[in-house]
């Protein structure tokens, strides 16, 4: 695998360097920390929404930093959560006195490291809450839903958190709405091929030509199970059926829809998939609200995709519709 690369050990630093050089109109580097923050942060009286995780998932997480979404993103090495020290420094840098909301995918490393940062901030008298993203329906059965990992649905969770903080909600309200956004978001993914980490020669896993992985991880983990390779229309049915079966209580009929490419499955293929998804959603009585199709949470060059449904109530719809301006996502409002 050929990569745009100097030395593998410098990859993260140079990646952040190029990112902030290009997008200084939205973000600035956090001094002495591995992270970026929205231009103008900290803002007095506004809750700071701090996202983060390993890199290799762009636009998650640091591509979603900017007005109306995340206040800051903590950036780890490829597929490796940032340390508690870095999460602490980034949170300190953007604390506007109204409290900090950490929100990130539910992975052991992220949970441990952000918990260390939270503990230090609390010891110093700060007000900190954490909301884990747990949208992957195949990561654990429904009775263990809080143990599920976070994948593409994090996009809607961060959007809700950022919009709530932007309009001046207090920390308890931002936390409650972010939790509700997560509780009403479900994702299912499939993969056709593994990804290769820059500096390495081999992909993290391979998939036989006539097979596919169901229930992918976004760090090059193999799927939860393998299956015969299906045509797109059958993948669409598997995805819609799985998510509809897991609709939250009081789901209502309106859901934001995200078809996410993982890096190696391109836009035209995602449109083919959505051609199968749209009528199935209609048949299930779901009105798709402003569907998004593209790359929102990637896994380097992994081939595969996911479908996310984010069931909207009136509060979440207002947060969904609010303006946002980040390097990777803009909404005019």
């Amino acid at each position, binding site marked *: 695998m050929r990569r745009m690369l100097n030395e593998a050990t410098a990859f993260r630093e140079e990646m952040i360097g190029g990112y902030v050089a290009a997008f200084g109109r939205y973000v600035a580097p956090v001094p002495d920390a591995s992270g970026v923050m929205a231009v103008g942060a900290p803002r007095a009286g506004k809750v700071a929404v701090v996202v983060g995780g390993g890199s290799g998932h762009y636009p998650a997480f640091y591509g979603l930093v900017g007005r109306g979404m995340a206040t800051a993103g903590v950036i780890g090495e490829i597929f490796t959560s940032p340390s508690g020290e870095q999460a602490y420094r980034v949170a300190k840098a953007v604390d506007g006195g109204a409290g900090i909301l950490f929100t990130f995918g539910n992975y052991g490393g992220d949970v441990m490291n952000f918990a260390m940062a939270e503990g230090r901030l609390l010891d110093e008298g700060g007000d900190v809450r954490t909301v884990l993203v747990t949208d992957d329906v195949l990561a654990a059965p429904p009775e263990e839903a809080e143990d599920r990992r976070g994948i593409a649905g994090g996009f809607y969770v961060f959007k809700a958190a950022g919009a709530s903080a932007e309009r001046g909600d207090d920390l308890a309200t931002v936390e409650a709405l972010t939790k509700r956004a997560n509780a009403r978001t479900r994702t299912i993914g499939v993969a056709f091929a593994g990804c290769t980490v820059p500096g390495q020669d081999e992909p993290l896993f391979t998939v036989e030509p006539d097979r596919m992985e169901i229930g992918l991880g976004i760090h090059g*983990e193999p799927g939860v199970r393998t299956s015969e390779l299906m045509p797109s229309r059958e993948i669409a049915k598997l995805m819609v059926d799985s998510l509809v079966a897991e609709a939250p209580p009081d789901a209502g009929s309106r859901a934001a829809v995200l078809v996410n490419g993982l890096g190696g499955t391109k836009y035209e293929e995602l449109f083919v998939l959505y051609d199968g998804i749209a009528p199935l959603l209609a048949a299930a009585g779901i009105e798709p609200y402003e569907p998004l199709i593209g790359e929102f949470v990637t896994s380097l060059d992994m081939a595969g995709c996911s479908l996310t449904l984010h069931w909207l109530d009136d509060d979440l719809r207002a947060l969904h519709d609010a303006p946002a301006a980040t390097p990777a996502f803009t909404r005019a409002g």
Partner: protein
Amino acid sequence: MRDNDADGGRLAQTILAHVLAAVEARELELGRLDAAAGDGDHGAGMVRGLRAAVAAADGPEGVAGDILARAGTGFTDAAGGASGALVGSWIGAIGRSLAGADRLDVAAVADALDAGQAMIQRLGKAKPGDKTMLDTLDPFLRALRRAVETGATLDAAWAAALPEAEAGMRATAEMIAKRGRAARLGERSRGHVDAGAMSLLIILTAVGDVIRQQAA
């Protein structure tokens, strides 16, 4: 047995340097083990963490506990990830326990390893049998304790405990992961030893090498 003084601090620096060399030599193997169920970066993360630990241990002299506490903080920050938090906090907890000891004897070392293991269990919420680094550490510490009760020296107790650690590590091949990213794979996590369990065995073996050379 030695006083808990700056000589002990220099011994801690020697141990850290030896552990770094031992893990560097096995970095690719650790990566391959991790790729079986995870993202293949375990070896790279351990090396990144240990280099920072060795750098942090350099500098002002102190007792072994203070040196290790600094090393643990350096490890956690540089490595990142779950293993960064766990192994760095383990080293740090061992250091803080040793810093309060009167003498660097086998009982103080066993107590420090107890403190380290308690820290890992609190942070990672795993228990022995979950296919994690605890499957190396827990049998090692039990065997070390048994040897201490017979009056063994640190050198002899460590040597007696290492085979138990290795057996514990090997047993992870037949386990289903209960914690960490590998836990999402259920039955598919079976068949490979846990990369973290292997890392801890490499570390404990390297520490034993230095202890043996000191005793000789």
